[in-house]
């Protein structure tokens, strides 16, 4: 038995460190000013895919849509055990909402890969929407199992999985191919040092070209590309055209939702009454709350 696992991941700004300065005047996020990390639940999806490969065989492909710098999460995926990676990148993707994003990912999946299972993290910490997974499944006309905790069984025809529901869990069975969204119920493995030594050299064409300072001879680049490919260090890039995506349905153009405005969160000014931590202070507070019928 052997399966093709396709994992979609996202490089996200570390939202714990967002400040007002990280916003551009037009209300969009200045990603360049923020530390970029591997979206946490996407690491859980990758971990599950690698575990499935170890249990049932197959090949793990990791893909991300993002700017050229997102190649970094693909290297991170290689360190952890991904077999193949792909960077879906094009200026025309900029400004995509979840609908345009899921459309783009669906084109990539349908037109450039073979898959039995698509795995996504439940949600990304920059938006917390949890929408792209189910939207992608709809675009590919696939069934979905959301909030997967554990895969119990897998064969060529179907999968059995345990998923979280409100206040408990469900065991479900579903035929392949399908989309799984994964929650943080496994422990993602750390990068392997051996793989890191090898794959830290992995590069996209853009990265390779940027590295050349003395000459940018096209033939020389092509020769190097062959070398990187032969060593398994090539990170393939896919443009909108490569994914056969309709230009009208990607990026800002393909996004029905528009941002009207953005405000930084301002603390509501409250007239706080300071209460002394003494017995008398606290007794008067409790008395006041009882008098106002707030405490019974």
């Amino acid at each position, binding site marked *: 038995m052997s399966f093709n696992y396709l994992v979609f991941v996202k490089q996200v700004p570390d939202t714990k460190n*967002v400040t007002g300065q990280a916003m551009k005047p037009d209300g969009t996020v200045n990603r360049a000013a923020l530390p970029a990390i591997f979206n946490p639940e996407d690491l859980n999806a990758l971990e599950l895919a690698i575990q499935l490969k170890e249990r049932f065989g197959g090949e793990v492909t990791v893909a991300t849509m993002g700017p050229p710098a997102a190649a970094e999460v693909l290297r991170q995926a290689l360190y952890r055990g991904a077999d193949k990676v792909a960077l879906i990148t094009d200026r025309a993707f900029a400004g995509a909402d979840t609908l345009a994003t899921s459309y783009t990912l669906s084109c990539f999946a349908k037109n450039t890969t073979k898959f039995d299972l698509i795995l996504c993290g439940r949600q990304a*910490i920059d938006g917390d929407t949890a929408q792209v997974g189910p939207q992608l499944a709809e675009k590919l006309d696939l069934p979905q199992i*959301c909030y997967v905790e554990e895969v119990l069984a897998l064969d060529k025809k179907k999968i059995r999985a345990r998923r979280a*529901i*409100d206040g408990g869990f469900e065991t479900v069975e579903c035929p392949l191919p399908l989309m799984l969204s994964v929650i943080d119920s496994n422990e993602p493995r750390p990068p392997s040092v051996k793989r890191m030594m090898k794959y830290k050299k992995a590069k996209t064409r853009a990265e390779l070209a940027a590295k050349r300072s003395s000459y940018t001879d096209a033939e020389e680049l092509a020769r190097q590309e062959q070398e990187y490919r032969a060593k398994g260090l090539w990170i393939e890039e896919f443009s909108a055209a490569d994914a056969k995506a309709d230009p009208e349905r990607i990026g800002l153009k393909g996004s029905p939702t528009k*941002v009207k405005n953005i405000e930084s969160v301002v603390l509501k000014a409250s007239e*706080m009454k300071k209460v002394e*931590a003494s017995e008398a202070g606290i007794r008067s507070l*409790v008395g006041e709350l009882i008098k106002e019928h707030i405490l019974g």
Partner: protein
Amino acid sequence: MTSKIGNVWVFAEQEGGKIASVSLELVSKGRELAATLGVKTEAVLLGNNIEKSTATLFHYGCSKVYLAESPDLEPFTVLPFADTIIKLAKQHRPNILLFGATPKGRELAPRVASALLAGLTADCTNLRIDDFDDKINGKSYKNKLMQIRPAFGGNIIATIVNTWEDPQMVTVRPGVMRLGEPDASRKGEIEKVKVEIPAHLKVLKVLDKVQKEKSVDLLSSQIVVAGGYGVGSKENFRLVYDLARTIGADVGASRAAVDAGWIDHDHQVGQTGVTVRPKLYIACGISGSIQHRAGMAESGIIVAVNSDPGAPIFSVAHYGIVGDLNDVIPKMIKAYKTKG
């Protein structure tokens, strides 16, 4: 000249025939939006043998319920639900379609939105009707739904507008919108929907389902005593429980306390927990991160106890006590027990 716009729809979530509180909150909000637009508030209710549940929806102000009953819609599985709602929405073209941001709503709404090519905004904290000038594309829109939500970990508040064809779709977390008053005399119309689910959408089988009641339901709590990282240990949460028991409160917690393993996730208040608006909220040893404040800032009276006078929780508190909770909580208990 204006073309007739569609109604406001609420996806009425139910489990065992009981309508989820978030759906009733959305009906309450939906009536407000519908009144501004001059349209009606309607619900779509899916399941099997659930006709009785329509009464609750009418009491909260729905004028019509689209009722889809079929064995294929019980238990909940996402594909048959999505298929039914997509067909209904295509037929009736609602102007607005609201979902609770529950586990079910969050896997269902994106599928529906994707099929309808509609914009979808997750976890809105406020909704209102306004006009929108899209300066980038030089277009103006009348009476659009302003979809207001926190983003980037709660650091910013964004107003989003769906500029494509209706429906305008959003999800809203439980507890965020205010529940209106039910009126048992209100009645409405039931429109039964013929349910025909194609075989290829009935492929997912639920083999087993384990669901327990939540250990606490903070959404309906009148008084919440919440503990944070400052409580210090699982053992010390006893103090928080003691105070809660004494004054008849439920126990809440910050994410830090839940992550530390001191208390179950059911108790978590904040952006990734529940949003509460009790009449009294006592925060003990909670620093008050933006995510926590998002889940409790609307409480009637907020009392904060923290040893750090600079803790952000004091910025939303009505009463602040700078002190050690190990000292302050016993004093509160004593003061309450010896009242009047």
